[in-house]
């Protein structure tokens, strides 16, 4: 039984395309710089200096770098939540200047609305977009099945484990059918075993709903296992791209590749790059 509270929902014909299945989009970073002004002492702090790379359609790109290099800022800028001070971020052909419906964010902490059930949380984005309630619920249930949470749609967030909450987080981002999925270290707060399960789950889910993905992580192995390409950032402040590495393993990826010599080679390459990067 799916429990939903009664709520008046604006039924509009505004978004018929929401279920047409948006195709994956292309995300470009062109000479992007991000600077913060610390409010305390008004000093300008250059978090990101000059970053350029592209996430092609249907590509899974991982960004890896040392702590504090501003990886999350890049993602927040792509999401439109943080302004950039130089350069441009483009989705398809349009510049990013604020949040948009063509992107969806999976934050590091699940950030579920605690007073809503799983299903109500998942369809939150659709509710904001004023999609009809029954359509939204139907699509929400499909996504809930896809992320492996069938049977839990009536549960409240506090009744779920960390990994399950992140699945809801992911479902919430997927249900609005974005062209680009932005993920900010989504598995960082999970224990090692759950994290490995979630990595495999993510690849399975991504395989069924091809989107472009920008995946931020500090875990080198995770980046190589998941990505088609790995962007290595240098140490901050004033971060730039150190290296872009193509990851050539076949899809679907088997977990055994983590032990293969080629994999370990790439890990070493990236590790060295990070260790000896300028900064």
């Amino acid at each position, binding site marked *: 039984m799916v429990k939903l509270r009664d709520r008046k929902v604006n039924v509009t014909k505004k978004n018929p395309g929401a279920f047409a299945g948006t195709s994956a989009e292309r995300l470009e970073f062109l000479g992007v710089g991000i600077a913060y002004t610390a409010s305390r002492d008004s000093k300008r702090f250059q978090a990101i200096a000059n970053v350029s790379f592209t996430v092609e359609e249907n590509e899974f790109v991982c960004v890896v770098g040392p702590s504090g290099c501003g990886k999350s800022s890049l993602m927040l800028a792509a999401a439109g939540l943080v302004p950039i001070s130089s350069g441009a971020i483009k989705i398809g052909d349009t510049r990013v200047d604020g*949040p948009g419906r063509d992107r969806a964010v999976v934050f590091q902490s699940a950030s579920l*609305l605690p007073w809503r059930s799983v299903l109500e949380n998942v369809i939150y*984005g659709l509710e*904001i977009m004023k999609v009809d309630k029954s359509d939204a619920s139907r699509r929400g249930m499909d996504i809930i099945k896809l992320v492996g*949470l069938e049977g839990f749609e009536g549960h409240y967030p506090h009744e779920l484990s960390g990994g399950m909450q992140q699945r809801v987080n992911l479902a919430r981002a997927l249900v609005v059918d974005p062209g680009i999925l932005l993920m900010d270290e989504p598995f960082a707060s999970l224990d090692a*075993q759950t994290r*490995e*399960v979630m990595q495999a*789950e993510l690849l399975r889910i991504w395989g069924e709903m091809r989107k472009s993905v920008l995946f931020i992580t500090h875990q080198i192995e995770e980046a190589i296992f998941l990505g088609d390409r790995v962007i290595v950032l240098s140490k901050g402040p004033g971060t730039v791209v150190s290296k872009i590495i193509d990851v050539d393993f076949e899809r679907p990826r088997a977990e055994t590749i983590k032990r293969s010599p080629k994999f370990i080679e790439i890990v070493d390459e990236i590790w060295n790059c990070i260790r000896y990067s300028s900064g």
Partner: protein
Amino acid sequence: MEYGQEVLGEPGLTGSPFELQTPDPFSAENDAPKDTFHSSFGRLPEKYLRVILGLLGAVVILGAWQICADLKIVNPAFTSRPSAIAIAAKHYFDGGGGIYALKISFIEFGLGFAISLVIGLIIGIVMGWWRWLDYLFDPLVNFGYATPRIALVPLLVVWFGIGTASKVAVVFLSAVFPIMINTISGVKTSDASLLRVAQAFKASNFQIFRTVVLPGAVPSIVTGIRLGIGQGLIGMVVGELIASTAGLGYTIETAGNNFQSALMFVAVAVVAGIGVILTQSLRVVERRLDRWRPRVGN
């Protein structure tokens, strides 16, 4: 649900060596059944125990009181006794002016509290949402909250007369500030990560308010309402004690002046009873709103 029958585990790949079936320590499903009170009383259902012990305590106290008064251990002219109070209660509500006093006090509190609810919530929300309004009115709110209502009653009587209106004003002034202050706090302390989620979905300000800020503020608001009820009741009684011509407080005042201690206790008990009824009703509402919360403690 049997203990251990179902565990909330991590749904993973079938056959994967990483598939977990560990019970989630924070899930409520694996706790022992909630209505058993493990103690020296054995496995009695807690709700029966609460009633039994409660009644026992009340009976013991009332009995001791009656006995002390009958044996003149204490002076019954001052302390009265349960039997006399029961008789006085019967007289009071059976044509002794009790119903009328109750009606007056009820109107005074009801009206004053309703107005304070409306004004407290509206101003609280508005001041919590728009920061400049908060800066503007905060000194006034703090000043109003700190002012003892007792000190204002004579002034209010001058303004509104000795009748019901001045008491409504006292109740309003007593209840509005806790409601307002807690509402402001609830609105201001919205979870920043949830706000960010709403922004990422490009929610309008109104949508952010409706879906994140307001539901998040409900616990604080309910707390404010509960405090408002308490303060409002005090305001009503104080107002009637100082200057009134009718009502429960008036009864307390005149009964006290005439050494009718039994009648005084009756009126005091009625006031307390109203307070209990109101706070318990609020508790029921609160429990319904709190369905999504994890259970903390016992």
